[in-house]
């Protein structure tokens, strides 16, 4: 069962919003199609990183994520919600939320929250992988969707955050 609702992404070439569809309850078939469209770009990015001699620990973490395996392992759990954004008939981003967790900071202690286990944009939208990303606002649409569901985001573990922390650590 999945729900579809209209959302907007930002076309980064024109700066204008474009209509997209937020899918709440992404199916295994949709994940498979996303991987098929993402893989050639990911392989090309990996080749480039090897060519540029970038150490593997600095590669974007989501390059090796196996979305199919993650979906098969979690899809039937009520606690796990799969969200996706479609635009141009392609999956522009995927995220896996865990809604069985509760807040830990004192003012939200014990209250339900949506923990973002995984979030990634399609490789053609990732500034880490291309100099001209196509669409923006992927992450904010996912976060807004989680928040509007009545959950509170306490912690986000994304490839961006991991890379950002590594960069900050290397500077200090």
């Amino acid at each position: 069962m999945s729900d579809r609702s209209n959302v907007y992404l930002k076309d980064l070439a024109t700066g204008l919003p474009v209509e997209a569809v937020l899918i709440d309850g992404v199916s295994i078939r949709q994940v498979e199609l996303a991987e098929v469209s993402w893989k050639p770009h990911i392989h090309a990015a990996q080749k480039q990183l090897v060519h540029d001699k970038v150490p593997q620990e600095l590669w974007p973490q989501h390059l090796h994520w196996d979305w199919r395996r993650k979906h098969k392992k979690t899809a039937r759990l009520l606690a796990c919600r799969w969200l996706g954004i479609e635009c141009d008939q392609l999956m522009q981003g995927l995220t896996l939320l865990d809604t069985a967790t509760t807040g830990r900071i004192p003012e939200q202690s014990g209250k339900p929250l949506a923990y973002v286990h995984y979030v990634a944009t399609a490789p053609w939208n990732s500034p880490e992988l291309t100099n001209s990303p196509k669409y923006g606002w992927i992450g904010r649409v996912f976060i807004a969707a989680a928040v509007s569901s009545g959950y509170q985001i306490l912690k986000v573990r994304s490839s961006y955050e991991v890379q950002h922390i590594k960069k900050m650590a290397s500077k200090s």
Partner: protein
Amino acid sequence: MSAKKTMTLNLTDQEMEVLEELAQKKDISKTAIIRQALRLYQLIDVRISEGEKLYFEDSKKKEKSALMLL
């Protein structure tokens, strides 16, 4: 979210009291408490069925006790 179905839930006075206490303590509805309980129960049941264990740890006594599900 997907379409919802309605059911009648028969609870004892004590069960209802606990449900109301939890709802008040966490500042969420009784329905939200039941939903959260179902999500957690399924998650724990699946992981224990797969061979994992769930422990409570007393940090002062350094004792661990495994939670068993019926």
